[in-house]
């Protein structure tokens, strides 16, 4: 879950903007909120606010990427967008002074509220300033993009593209930052880190011709200057393959193109490269403070993600910059299919009013429900039936898959804090699991015998489970157990590479961690161990174990034997005890605990001095461990 930084002043200003669209025709004032109001409001809208942070704003002199950094973070070291190294070239980093941002902990589900434009739209609806479906006028398409059929082939796969033109933008550093942040947040939330969808924004006035080309090209076949490199330097002109190898952003995303034989490339009518999706744009088409018109593209592996990402970008831009005009682009797909993007037509869903009211547990009629949905930005029409609503879901919403998603919107609009608290009236009978009840009795026995329960982590390692216990590879007892251990494919530390197969290591580790305290110490653990089991549905299963360890100057076999006997007696399960050999114990002071039909369900004895040494223990230890499940069976 990433943190989204949203500039407080920009958001407040957008919320306060007069309703009724851009320009002087807006009459009603928006809502005048303070940042404290936002702090109180955001959690009710499902936005988790981490903090309101004081930041310093920096901007990259090469690509105009902006950064908000807290005092603790300090200035950025290199540009995440174009890769410029600010340590090597300090003059490229400019300090724009202080600002305030909301740090929001956002889930990926609502990328339409990741920027101040979309967030202001959401809040204005909730507050009733501007409700119902927002209209975004679209001008007819002037530009066309021809899609190379090879992009649908597995060897050069990135088949989908959607584009738009945005006229009349006015930029300052803050605005460029918003546009870039919007792109990055969408890359994460919708694009799965540029895989499903990646976005490019270009200065339209650097582009020539009306027919653009989205092609699959030879990675070594042509050269261009990627964003952030100096066009005056001949070494800046690189092939796509060189970009993946040498450019910082290229290296970061190389894994997305490396498996392909041909790389996707977007060019204008004159052959100028716009970008090598999803890696990097060209320097020649870069957006600057002087840019007045945008060309926007989204390419990717998922048609749905590509379309939604474009819809969010253009509608949010229009929310942030009300004076912009949106223009469509024709996409000529292979096989003669032509699409017009962006497609901002709402999705139509039918909502059952009763069902919505029952789901919330609140009595609501169609009119009330319609009002709630309108305040969340949906269009609502009567469905020709008193119990149904026809809901028009805006094209920027990526999360509405099912009518039930509208019920959540209604709940947020209604206010979670207004929902009554009730219990289901249905009678049911509580039913504990037997092994849990039995484990509670087993714990009572061991605490009654003066032992303290410990709880240790259920992940372990081969070193902890076998090597320290004198069970090296090749030792038959150890090998049998090793073969039954569940192994983690991607462990996060060397200490946790498998599920535990024994409680012994946890006991000795705990004793080792408590060497400085009074002796004797008596501890036990009752918990699950986990074994590979081909008969189990998932290939492994847990088994409830019990184990206890005693440490002290005069501790010996007789002490642990007494505990084992008491344990078995109190649980009313007669056991057998017979001598065995076990490398982890002192020879002649170790025994197998058995039950009728299984003569080895556990072990008790005095721990071998070498094992004690492995744990750094300086006093004798006696312990027992057994399968509680088998004892109780």
């Amino acid at each position: 879950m990433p943190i989204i930084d949203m500039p407080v002043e920009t958001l407040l200003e957008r919320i306060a903007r007069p309703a009724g669209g851009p320009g002087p025709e807006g009459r009603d004032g928006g809502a005048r909120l303070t940042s404290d109001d936002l702090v109180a409001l955001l959690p009710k809208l499902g936005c988790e606010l981490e903090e309101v942070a004081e930041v310093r704003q920096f901007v990259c002199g090469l690509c105009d990427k902006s950064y908000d950094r807290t005092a603790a973070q300090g200035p950025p070291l290199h540009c995440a967008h174009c890769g410029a190294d600010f340590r090597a070239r300090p003059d490229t980093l400019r300090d724009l002074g202080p600002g305030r941002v909301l740090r929001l902990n956002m889930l990926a589900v609502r990328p339409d509220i990741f920027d101040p434009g979309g967030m202001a739209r959401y809040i204005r609806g909730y507050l009733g300033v501007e409700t119902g479906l927002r209209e975004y006028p679209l001008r007819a398409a002037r530009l066309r993009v021809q899609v190379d059929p090879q992009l649908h082939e597995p060897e050069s796969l990135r088949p989908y593209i959607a584009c738009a033109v945005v006229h009349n933008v006015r930029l300052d550093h803050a605005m460029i930052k918003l546009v870039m942040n919007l792109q990055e947040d969408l890359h994460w939330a919708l694009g799965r880190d540029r895989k499903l969808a990646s976005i490019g924004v270009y200065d339209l006035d650097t582009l020539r011709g009306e027919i653009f080309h989205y092609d699959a090209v030879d990675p070594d076949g042509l050269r261009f200057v990627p964003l952030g490199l100096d066009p005056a330097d001949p070494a800046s002109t690189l092939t796509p393959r060189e970009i993946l190898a040498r450019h910082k952003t290229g290296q970061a995303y190389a894994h997305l193109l490396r498996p392909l034989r041909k790389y996707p490339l977007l060019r204008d009518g004159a052959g100028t490269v716009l970008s090598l999706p999803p890696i990097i744009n060209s320097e020649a088409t870069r957006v600057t403070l002087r840019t007045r018109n945008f060309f926007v593209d989204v390419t990717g592996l998922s048609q749905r993600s590509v379309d939604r990402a474009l819809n969010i970008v253009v509608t949010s831009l229009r929310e942030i910059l009300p004076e912009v005009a949106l223009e469509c682009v024709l996409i000529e797909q292979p096989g003669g299919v032509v699409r017009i993007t962006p497609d901002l037509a709402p999705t139509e869903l039918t909502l059952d009013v009763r069902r919505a009211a029952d789901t919330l547990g609140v009595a609501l009629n169609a009119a009330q429900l319609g009002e709630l949905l309108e305040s969340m930005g949906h269009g609502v029409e009567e469905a020709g039936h008193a119990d149904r609503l026809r809901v028009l879901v805006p094209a920027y919403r990526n999360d509405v898959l099912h009518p039930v998603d509208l019920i959540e919107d209604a709940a947020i609009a209604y206010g979670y804090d207004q929902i009554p608290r009730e219990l289901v009236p249905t009678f049911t009978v509580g039913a504990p699991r037997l092994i849990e009840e039995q484990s509670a009795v087993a714990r009572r026995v061991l605490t009654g015998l003066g032992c303290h329960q410990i709880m240790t982590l259920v992940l372990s390692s081969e070193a902890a489970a076998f090597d320290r216990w004198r069970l090296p590879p090749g030792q038959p007892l150890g090998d049998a157990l090793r073969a039954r251990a569940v192994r983690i494919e991607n462990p996060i530390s060397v200490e946790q590479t498998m599920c535990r197969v024994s409680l012994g290591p946890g006991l000795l580790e705990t004793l080792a961690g408590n060497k400085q305290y009074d002796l004797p110490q008596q501890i036990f653990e009752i918990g699950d161990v986990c074994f590979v089991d081909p008969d189990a549905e998932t290939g492994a299963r847990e088994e409830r174990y019990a184990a206890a360890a005693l440490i002290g100057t005069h501790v010996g076999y007789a002490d642990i034997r007494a505990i084992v006997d008491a344990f078995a007696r109190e649980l009313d399960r007669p056991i057998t005890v017979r001598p065995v050999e076990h490398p982890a114990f002192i020879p002649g002071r170790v025994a197998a605990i058995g039950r009728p039909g299984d003569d080895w369900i556990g072990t008790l004895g005095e721990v071998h001095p070498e094992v004690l040494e492995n744990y750094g223990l300086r006093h004798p230890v006696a312990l027992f461990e057994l399968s509680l499940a088998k004892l109780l069976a």
Partner: protein
Amino acid sequence: MELPQQQYDVLRQLAEASAPRSIADLVAALGIDQANVTAACIMLQQTGYVAIAESTFEELRLGPDGEPYAARPLPERVIVGVLRAQGGRCRLTEVPNHCELDTAQVGGALRWLTQRGWAKKEGDALVLGANAPADAAALEPDEQLIRALAGGRVATRAELEAEGLPVQAALDVLSKRKGFVVLKERTQRLVSLTESGRKLLAAGVQGRRKVTQLTPELLAEGGWRDVDLQPYDVTLAAKQLYPGKEHPFQRTLERVRRVFLEMGFEEVVSPWVESSFWDFDALFQPQDHPARDMQDTFYVARPDRCRLPDETYVERVRATHENGGDTGSVGWQYRWSRELAQKPVLRTHTTATTIRALARHSAGRPGKYFVIGPVFRRETVDYKHLPIFHQVDGIIVDPHASLATLIGTLTAFYTKMGFPKVKVNPSFFPYTEPSAEVLLYLENRGDWVEMGGSGLFRPEVTLPLGIHDRVLAWGLGLERLAMFIHDVKAIGELFYAAMPWLREAPLCRA
């Protein structure tokens, strides 16, 4: 009038002897500990029945170098004997030939022979002197003293003088001979009866025994009637005792368990090693969802593949992911992979357990299920995070399931746990709709704290299982709750426990 037995005994002893008695005397006479006698004397002195006078005296005994000569003559006297036998003169080098002294001992004795005037050196010969003793039995004072202290005897100067020994003359000589005699200055307490002590005895005072331990003998023979049981300082603390205890976290888990059982829930379980299918796919989490990344989830290398449940259900789940199937959803619009669904993971939440319970549940009937157990996330360890933590997940299948009954149920649960202030905020979780984040108000922090997620299962989750009732679901973290209850600052303290905490954490807190 009665006195404690030992004080009475001391008085009697003093009355029998006319002279003051030393403490050592009294100890020997009464046959009890010196500490008890001293204590009795001091008590008697405080009440004025005895006087204690302190005097110093000198005590003598042989040192290690003097010890050998208690039984045999000093070397100089041996040499005098040799000289007499040799006619009053002998070559110095030949002296050892005539006695058991070696050359070194002969050399050492020269000084004393000269000083006593018993012999003198003339050239290489030793010649008998004028003062040489004629009678071998007539001992010098120092020799007498050495003999008197034979056998490790320790004696006072006064005693030795009383025996007629010329102690001072002996010491004058021996003080120059290091290690022959040890002289120590000592203090002696002499106890004497006072006038009031004498009167007390005359008045017929009786002794009464004081005992600390009431013994079986005292009880059996009724002897307890004749003794005083020593009073104690009852304000003194005794040693610390700790009963064997369940782990504090276990007690919290048990309390959570009991609360759900009280609320009519059935306890369920599922394996730690879980198929991606039950952990993610059954919960409508798309196969490219970030939560399924190797970054966040532990994948299992052995076993390397899980079986999938019955084909009809798997097929419905596939369709739901791809296009919504017959759930009324548009689905995630991608190609669902059976292989990815079979990949085993360490379960990332106990919702894998409750969704399995829902799959076993007979449709159309109400049901409540809960599970408490460990879950696994690929988290870097810090004071708040471990790669393993415990959750309680619960579901309610019921025609009355609603956001209202969800919030009501969570409030009832936390109220029973001792946290009556419960709040929910909207949130966006992948498999519930509506979704609600659960917060508790902590009085001691004065703040709301997140405890977990909840919601109503999406139709994409319930309909493929044939469940048409709405289903309430929640997954709540338990370590955090236990840390508040037991006032633990770092999560690691629960699992790498220190003995003092295990011993001391009060049992009443759960």
